[in-house]
């Protein structure tokens, strides 16, 4: 048991490592980390002497704590070690790098790493991302503690448990555990979007491509349009197509509309025909018009359907879609008949046909009307969704209140909300 209790990496770094005779074999330069269950563990320590590095396997480490570092083998017998790129080294690859704190949904920098003895191994239990970690690295933790103690201020210890950490750069891939991956996917899309916008492009790209398509689509929808374009333009077209397919058609068309034409085409070609047609139709409209704002994902039933049948159908499908508060009654040739609020549907007799349930005096708009006008209408008539009807009377899509709000809020407020 080389390590009892716990210690911080900075406590042992650069300390002399003693061999069995008590001579200094070198100084601790780094530790090699491998994936383990349940936490990553130290597999070997890297000792450096006269600019040469030696790798000492963990089983040959006798003592490993903040006072004494010692090994069981003679310094001369250890082979010199050439660092390989795929090795994961705590100092080289983790310390000072950015990580996602999946629990707090933000990006932080690793100031220090806490190790703990567990079943004879040294496991990585937490990352110190706070000011104490910084002070410890600078070698003034004790002094600062005393100083702030005089001021009656307690220095907080900001640790993130290793299981809430999600590595950002591909370098750390070997370390990726299943738990954090799920943690990241469980984040609210808006939080995930915030993380994506904080990290460098490469890191954002690798994070996005590793997420499942649904989560990625959710996060992407929440980003500002320039950031969406940046990310989508960087990732592989097939993956991009998969993600965009998951997005509501109106948002998908916004993203594609902002991409360079050749890239957009490349992605569109890989999207399912049905989805791709919807998106292309939307792409034909001005961005700030009813056509550009509307979604083509809505629920429409023949106006002759009874309330009971409609509810049955709604139950079968609506769970998979965006939240819906109303359904649309359509006649022959998709002609718009009217809006049926879910409430009306629920309180109606189950035999009543839909066309008797439609809202009186329902407003509709043509696809070329501009966004500001729509907002005025929605505000005036207290609408949460506004049907878009073409010149031929066909129901083309629906503008929902959330699309209008996003369009109207000044960029500053949108950003503030996200931050």
């Amino acid at each position: 048991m080389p390590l009892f209790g716990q210690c911080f990496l900075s406590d042992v770094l650069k300390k002399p490592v003693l061999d069995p005779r008590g001579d200094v074999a070198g100084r601790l330069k780094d530790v090699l980390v491998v994936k383990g269950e349940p936490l990553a563990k130290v597999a070997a320590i890297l000792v450096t002497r006269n600019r040469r590095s030696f790798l000492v396997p963990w089983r040959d480490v006798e003592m490993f704590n903040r006072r004494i570092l010692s090994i069981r083998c003679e310094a001369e017998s250890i082979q010199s070690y050439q660092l390989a790129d795929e090795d994961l080294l705590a100092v080289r690859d983790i310390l000072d790098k950015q990580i996602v704190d999946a629990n707090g949904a933000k990006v932080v920098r690793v100031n220090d790493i806490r190790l703990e003895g567990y079943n004879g191994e040294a496991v990585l239990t937490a990352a110190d991302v706070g000011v104490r970690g910084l002070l410890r690295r600078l070698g003034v933790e004790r002094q600062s503690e005393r100083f702030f103690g005089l001021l009656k201020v307690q220095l907080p210890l900001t640790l993130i448990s290793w299981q809430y950490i999600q590595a950002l750069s591909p370098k750390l891939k070997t370390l990726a555990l299943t738990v954090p991956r799920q943690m990241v996917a469980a984040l609210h899309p808006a939080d995930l979007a915030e993380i994506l916008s904080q990290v460098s492009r490469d890191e954002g790209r690798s994070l996005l491509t590793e997420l499942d398509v649904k989560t990625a689509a959710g996060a992407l929808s929440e980003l500002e349009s320039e950031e969406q374009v940046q990310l989508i333009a960087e990732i592989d077209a097939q993956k991009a197509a998969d993600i965009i397919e998951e997005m509501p058609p109106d948002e998908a068309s916004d993203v594609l509309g902002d991409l360079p034409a050749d890239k957009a085409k490349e992605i569109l070609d890989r999207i399912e025909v049905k989805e791709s047609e919807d998106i292309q139709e939307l792409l034909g409209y001005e961005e700030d018009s009813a056509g550009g704002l509307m979604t083509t994902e809505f629920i429409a039933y023949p106006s002759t359907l009874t309330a009971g049948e409609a509810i049955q159908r709604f139950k079968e499908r609506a769970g998979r879609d965006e939240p819906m508060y109303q359904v649309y009654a359509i006649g022959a040739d998709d002609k718009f008949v009217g809006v049926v609020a879910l409430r009306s549907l629920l309180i109606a007799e189950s035999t009543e046909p839909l066309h008797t349930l439609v809202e009186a005096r329902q407003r509709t708009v043509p696809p070329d009307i501009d966004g500001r006008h729509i907002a005025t209408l929605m505000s005036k008539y207290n609408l949460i969704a506004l049907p878009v009807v073409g010149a031929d009377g066909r129901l083309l899509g629906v503008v929902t209140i959330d699309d209008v709000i996003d369009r109207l809020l000044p960029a500053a407020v949108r950003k503030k909300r996200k931050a």
Partner: protein
Amino acid sequence: MLRSPRRLWSRLVLLGSIIGPGIITANIDNDAGGIATYSIAGAHFGYALLWTMVPATVVLIVVQEMASRMGVVTGKGLAALIRERFGVLVTFWLMVALLVTDLGNTTAEFAGWAASMELFGVSKYISVPLGALFIWLLVVKGTYRVFERIFLGICLVYLTYVVAAVMAKPDWVDVAKHTLRPTLRFDAAYLSMTIGLVGTTIAPWMQFYLQSAIVEKGVRPDQYWGVRVDVIVGSFMTDIVALFIMVACGATLFHAGIHVDSAEQAAQALTPLAGRYASLLFAAGLANASLFSACILPLATAYYICEAMGWEAGVDKTLREAPQFIGLYTGFIVVGAMIVMIPRVPLIPIMWITQVINGIMLPFVLLLMLKLVNDETLMKGWTNSRFQNTVAWVTTWVMIALTVGLLVSSVA
């Protein structure tokens, strides 16, 4: 490549969205300290130092281009890269040194603002608090996009110096001759002025600010040519403005044999020689440059310190979201403004010490930058060319030599 008009048009639009960081960074470089240095250089040496602007431009372009390239390729700020590559210790002390320098610089900016407003008859006890409040609100309540556009507009105000220079009626043939043909002299005054000129042209903090601003823009490597245009245009603009300041002072004060110690004295002395309007333009230019830099410097400092330490940062954030960032920014402005308002505070020594630390820091920052920019795993095929490395290394060594020379001569 630019043959079809449509393509040209789309390129221009792209350029319009990318341009900004390079021009802004280069222009802030002509801050209160810079204008003072150029004015004094012009007044004491006439056109004899105009030639320094040619190598200064080359160096400025090469160094800024390196920073912006790193920003585009890695998507990270310089402070973040230094922290990730060189660890906490190096980063921490670098940040401490930059903090001190930038605080001194910010104070100098407020001093420049106060002095120029006094030329317009406004007491510093009114102008300094109002100016400080204005720039604080601009950053804390504004958004970055708007902000950058405003700054880009402000950059045009620097052209007042060009107008002031024209009004001073210089002999243009003489100006051209001195710009293109170096005059080498080896007396102490001339040498230390040369150091001052080069030192004020590339400051360490600029590279951090530029790189972060470019990262914030999220420029992709295939759009990098736009950044290059931005940096080159900015560098030329800066040095042309600097050149015209020297010309304005050289054509008038030098000929009349008037000795000045500061930019505001130069502005005052211009009245009888080049007319009241030239003098007012000169003062307006100083006011603009000082306030502009007093805004960007604290912002840049807060930004890269947070970046290095791993704290939340961004002009769009609130105090609760980014306490260290807003705290640093506010603290800088408050302390800078307060120092200037202390009666009889020795401003000249403060500025001088600041410039010296600036000079000492620069080679270190350049060395770190060179190490990073030539790292193949980091830059993926975007490392320095041989020419870029040569210019950067020569600059680094010249700066080291100049700084050592300055220190030795000031001690002796």
